[in-house]
Structure formats: structure tokens, C-alpha cells
């Protein structure tokens, strides 16, 4: 059973999929730290929505790519008043280009934002989770990584890396009551996909439509729940059948 006072940290939660995840976890009884980097208004709007629905949340500013994951976890625990027993590594950026044209900087930014912080936060959050014999880690991956998407070698490497990391850390900590899973969204209606040719892309999706952030959040909510205690090391695709 989830311990009282359990707090969930969702990175990159001021908008899009992260915001929907924060709201879904709050609706499921988690106290939620709504992490954001540069959009305080967005984060505060998420907090307000959670509070109006009867939940508890706080906006916490931190750039997860800067490496100070211990300080972020400490701040979350102090401000929310409970141990971080759910961690959703959602923060991500895209810097697209075909490999021939991709700069070192764009490679490094994507790996340094989408993959490395997820490892550091996971490692540091595991301490408290192992102590509590309870923890839920959900890494937001992508259909891109397990499958190709020309122009996104950096993004694909980071997301495939998240899935590999998920499986291995899941195996390391499973017997302490800590689960580690990934959710792999497909083509979801967010700012990140707003500039893409939606009509063309949905033609190759079996469901023939974009997904919503709420549909991704529902998968995370399940994986973070007590009901999912025996689910670990897996990747749940929320992609309208794209990877089928």
C-alpha cells in the first residue's frame, strides 16, 4: 500500500503531457510536485487546477539538466512535506535534424535533458524508495527510439536509452517494492507536435487520430498505482497502434 504523505515529482510538468500526468496523479491521491524550468505561469495553472479539484500540489522551479538532482528532491520533500515515492521523468526537448547535419550541441542538449537527468533523479530518489520499501518510477519514452524517425537520431537515442535504463534498474530494485516502467507515447497533441503535418501523420496511425495528454497520463497513473505493483521493467505504448 502507498504510504501516507507520499509525494510524486513530475519533471517538465508545466504543460502538455507532464501537466496531464501531474493532474492525474493528484486525482489518484498523490501530493504532486509540478516541476518546471521556464514557465511559472503554466506550472501555477496546473497547481491551481489540482487544488480546485481537491488535490495538493506545488510548483517547483528547476532545470533538471543542470545536474543537481539531490537538491531538487530535497526541496520537493521540504515543500510538500512527504518523501518522493513516485518519480515521473517527463522533461524533454527535441532538436531535430538528420544525422549528417546534427550538431554536437544539439546531440548533447537532447541527451543531457531527456536521458541523463532521468538517471540522476532515479538514482537519488531510489534511496528513499528503497528505505520505504515502496516506489514508482515512470520514464516517459516515445515510440521514436524503439522505431526509426528520420531527423531524430538524438531524440531516438535518448528515448531508447530511457527504455534500456528502465529495464535494468527495474531488475535491480524489484525486490524492494520499487517498480520502474516506461510509457511510450505516439503522436500526441502537444506544443512539441503542433508544427507537424497532423493530417499526413494520422494516416499511418491505426487509430487515425492524435492521442491526448490525458490518455498518456492515464497509463502513468496506472503504473504509479498500487494495482501495478507487479508490473515492472515494461514499456506501455500509448500510440493508437503505431508500434503494433
Amino acid at each position, binding site marked *: 500500500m502507498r504510504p501516507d504523505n507520499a509525494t510524486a515529482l513530475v519533471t517538465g510538468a508545466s504543460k502538455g503531457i507532464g501537466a496531464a500526468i501531474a493532474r492525474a496523479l493528484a486525482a489518484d491521491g498523490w501530493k504532486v510536485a509540478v516541476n518546471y524550468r521556464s514557465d511559472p505561469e503554466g506550472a501555477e495553472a496546473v497547481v491551481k487546477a489540482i487544488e480546485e479539484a481537491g488535490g495538493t500540489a506545488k510548483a517547483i522551479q528547476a532545470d533538471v539538466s543542470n545536474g543537481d538532482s539531490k537538491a531538487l528532491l530535497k526541496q520537493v520533500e521540504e515543500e510538500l512535506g512527504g518523501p518522493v515515492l513516485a518519480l515521473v521523468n517527463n522533461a524533454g526537448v527535441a532538436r531535430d535534424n538528420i544525422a549528417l547535419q546534427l550538431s554536437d550541441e544539439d546531440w548533447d542538449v537532447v541527451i543531457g535533458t531527456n536521458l541523463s537527468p532521468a538517471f540522476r533523479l532515479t538514482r537519488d530518489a531510489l*534511496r528513499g524508495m*528503497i*528505505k520505504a520499501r515502496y516506489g514508482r518510477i515512470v520514464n516517459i519514452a516515445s515510440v521514436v527510439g524503439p522505431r526509426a524517425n528520420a531527423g531524430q537520431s538524438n531524440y531516438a537515442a535518448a528515448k531508447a536509452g530511457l527504455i534500456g535504463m528502465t529495464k535494468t534498474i527495474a531488475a*535491480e*530494485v524489484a*525486490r*524492494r517494492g520499487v517498480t520502474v516502467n516506461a510509457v511510450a507515447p505516439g503522436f500526441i497533441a502537444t506544443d512539441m507536435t503542433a508544427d507537424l503535418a497532423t493530417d499526413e501523420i494520422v494516416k499511418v496511425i491505426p487509430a487515425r487520430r492524435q492521442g491526448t495528454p490525458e490518455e498518456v497520463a492515464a497509463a502513468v497513473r496506472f503504473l504509479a498505482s498500487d494495482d501495478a505493483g507487479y508490473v515492472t521493467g515494461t514499456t506501455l505504448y500509448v500510440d493508437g497502434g503505431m508500434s503494433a
Partner: protein
Amino acid sequence: MATITEENVQKTVFEALPQFGVDESQITREATFEDLDVDSLDLAELSQIIEDEYGVALKGDDVGKIKTVGDAIDLVVQKGS
């Protein structure tokens, strides 16, 4: 923080090991972690318990050299003095 003495550290270690499923009657200074079926995750958690109690951080390299329960106790005492 608790004071680092051999007696205190031994007490902490002996009390921690049963949390990992070790039979109390098997715990001696001479027992090897391999014989006690204490693996790398257990040792990592033992390191955390020691760090929380005494403020002594055992790194991966340190833990790799430890063979027996006594080795672990001696290492903490040595690093803390």
C-alpha cells in the same frame, strides 16, 4: 550522528542484515556476505544505513573490496577515524 566505535558499528550492521533476509544466527564478523546471500543491492542499502547513522559514505570501490561482515565494520571504523 552516532559515534563511530567498533562496537556501535557492529551493532548497526548486525541489526541491519536481518532486514535483507539474513538469518540472525548466521551473522558473525567472520561470515562472508556471499555465504549470507547478501548481494550488491543489499550492500548498497547497508551503505546507506551506515551513511545515515554515521555520516561515512562508502563508495562503490570500497564496497567492492568487502568480503566479510568484519571487513565492512573495520572499513567504516577506519574511514570514520
